[in-house]
């Protein structure tokens, strides 16, 4: 079976640095980006099964990234991570098709659980 692929976009390098090894331990193939431009370039080439993206970023922000994902990869699932106090934008993200949102700071277990659920759904889409 092909490995599930995960793309992480957050302009704070710490997020990708911490999540990558943990998700790899769970058996995913993980790529990390810290600017939306390079993440969008990568999106043009491939659809990941699961995307994890921050909302507030320079350039194309998380909401823009989400819209592009939904256009190009309707079968992928998107998990949005937000700083606290931005619940309003999290709600907007859900309306625009995000699968789940998690507020920063979060326990690693939370994101592992969210990715696991998102993976199952993404699988169902592709079947």
């Amino acid at each position, binding site marked *: 079976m092909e490995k599930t692929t995960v793309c992480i976009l*957050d302009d*704070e*390098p*710490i*997020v990708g*640095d*911490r*999540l990558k*090894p*943990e998700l*790899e*331990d769970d*058996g995913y193939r993980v790529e990390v980006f810290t600017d939306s431009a390079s993440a969008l370039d990568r999106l043009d080439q491939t659809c990941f099964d699961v995307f994890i993206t921050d909302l507030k970023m320079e350039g194309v922000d998380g909401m823009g990234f989400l819209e592009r994902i939904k256009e190009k990869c309707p079968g992928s699932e998107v998990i949005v991570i937000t*700083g606290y106090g931005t619940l309003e934008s999290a709600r907007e993200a859900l309306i625009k098709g995000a699968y789940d949102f998690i507020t*920063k*700071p*979060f*326990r*690693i*277990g939370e*994101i592992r659980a969210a990715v696991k659920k998102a993976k199952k759904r993404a699988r169902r889409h592709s079947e």
Partner: protein
Amino acid sequence: MQPLQLFKKFFGPKGRDQIPFAELFKRFQDILRKNTAAMELIADMDGKMGGDFVFDRKYLSDSIKKLKELVVGNAYDLNFITNNQFLAIYEVIESLANELEAELSGKVVVRETRRIYHFHQIDEGTEDIVGYKAYNLSKMIHLPKIYFPDGFVASIGCFRDYLAYNNLFEKIATLLEACEKEDKAVGSVSNAICLMILGGDIPPNIRREILNAANKICHGKFEGCYLSVRSSAVGEDGDLSFAGLHDSFLNVRYGELLSAYKKVLASLYNSASLAYRRQMNLFPMEMAMPVLYQRMVPSRVAGVLYTLDPSNPEGAECIVSASWGLGRVVVEGQAATDTFRVLRTPPHAITDQKISTKTWMLAPLKSGSARKVPAELRNKASLSPQEASRIVEAGLILERFFKKPMDVEWSIDDKGRLWVVQARPLRVSRPKRPLRMELDEVLKKQRILLKEKGMIAYRGIGAGPVWIAANSDDLTRFPAGSVLVSHFAPPRLAEIIPRASAILTDIGTTTGHMATVAREFKVPTIVGTGEATRVLQPEQIVTVDAERNIVYEDCIEQLLHHQLLEKPAFEFTLEFQVLRRLLKKIAPLYLTDPTAANFTPKGCRTFHDIMRFVHEKAFQALAQTGADPRHFVRRGGRRLKSQIPLDLILIDLGGGIAETAGRQTYVSPDQITSIPMRAIWAGLSSPHTWNLEPIPIDFKGLMSSVTRVQGSDLLGNSLPGVNLGVIGADYVNLSLPLGYHFTVVEAAVGPKPENNYITFRFAGGVTDITRRSRRATLLMTILEKDGFKVELNGDLVNARAIDLTKEQMSGNLYLIGRLIGFTRQLDILLKNDTDIERYLDKFMHQAGQPDDNQDSFNKEG
């Protein structure tokens, strides 16, 4: 009902008639509320140190901002209540806040300016001054059975002086900027800076101080005294693989100490180090190089330990190489050595050994002088199995501490003492086929003993035999490398935490004392599992996965090796390091004793200190409103009606007294709704407590003799002889000048363990200091058995419990209630030290008796 309305009758003390008492009380309530919010915030930040959370720098700056708002707000309230008695506190807050801002921006903030630190002078929280290598060494010095050679550090102060004296600050900053922008610049920038450093002069005062310190550790004799001179760079956070990039020099003679200093400074900027900083995003951190000087050790046998076999890092063995005499032959591969393969699991048996013919050795203390090994020793194993085991045990303690396979230089002297001369991470190649890929299969087959029980207090993996802590255990017998399993998390276990491979508790929180110590020593820890002591058997081998929150049966080497070899350690991320520094200036409570001379605004070293100070002073100001109970009653205080001849006045801040009590002056104990007050009262009024009259004495007379109160000044509370309880739904502050001694209990007990605390202070008595001290010792023993952290100072007892659940806290307060009754005249009876034991038994025996009161606070509260 609005309890505050009851205070409308209150009028302020003399000189403050213009401010209604109700207003003062409202401010006091605000202080309590803000303190709780601030403590929650601090606990939240501290919890992030366990590695289970992902947080970014925005989280850090937001938290600091909120915290400052709360602390400033409290300072304002305190000055309102006290008529601006403590204006100096604003300045203290401002200066602390500035330091925190600077830390957030990555600058190392150093208050102290000492240039040289001998190891014993290296205090908690000075890692930024002496560098992590020296700091960690100073910590390891306290580990049992391992010796470290004496030494000192030329601190960050020396480094900065050096740059300033040679006008290098600006020049280096400019060059580094170029390097940060462009990868290719690393080599040329490195060269340029190293040349500037080597070409500089050491400021005369630094020269003098280094030479003086060296003089001291050589005891004034330079003949035969050799030192090692090593880097101890700031910002490495104990990750010595970084330090491996900097230079170290061994066997340095007195005359070469200063030139070695410059060489070590220059190596801070070598190209490998700069490249590493780029790679790890560490450029925003200030670069600084404290330098570590250590005396070389005369050794009978010396060598090197690799805690993993570099050629087979996935194996279960360590490699020890050893040779007679000074260790340098082993390090530099100059002569034949013995090699031992030793199991990593205790008791560390030797599985294989190669004994070579050792012809040459370096005579201890005579640098470079080779001499022939005596014939009878040449083919003899240079280590006994016991010695090999001790070396490995020590190495694994270091491995757990540094979270890396270690390369340890050790030596054993003529007296059989084991010295650790140096320890750094061992470079081993990552496994070709990632271990992670096999892990799933391996783990599926393992028996799971505990899964997702409790909370992770410190992330990591540890394995070893289970050691269950019981009260009577002799802690010195704790086998290093064991998994420490405990029902509670009593403070006394702190001393063995550095030697544990992992920790499990039945009860406890991630913000508790034990969790904090575990984080300090990086021991994987899961707290509050509920059943670890029941499920696990003594000496059973287990693997604690404090990442996935699972405890497996057996030692799972693959998991340990994966952790050691493949996983990047979270401790070395920039955010984590910044948080650690911030917390040092926020979380510790240094101002524990309100009677101490430093209990002043200027004495506040952390935000926690400030909160404590504000709370104490605000309470004192409020309580100083009169000496006569009637005075309080007139202003809305209630008298407690009970069988016990204790005239207690209760002041309700809100929710502490049932509404059914209306406005009546007398309330009965069952009308108390304050959770902590109920618990204390249940203990205080339990039949065995108060009925037991240790001595025949006219109790009424005793209670009325308020003029004989002695302890109150000791406690810094110039409170009158009124038994006063300020209560709220989940708060109590009880001052009891009972008879000749004085008791203060303060507690918050609510649903969130992290907000709960009890402080209990006790002092005074009619007898001489010896007897009073006996009573204090008795109190300490009882309180410690119950899990309190207790400090004794003469006859002053300061006890503290934090982070327990509502039920546990109530239980503790019940005990305190009983203690207050039990000990009130005990000092008279404690005629000699053996009486302590006798009365301890008596108290404990009573605790075992059926007692209706015992549950009442939980049932109804």
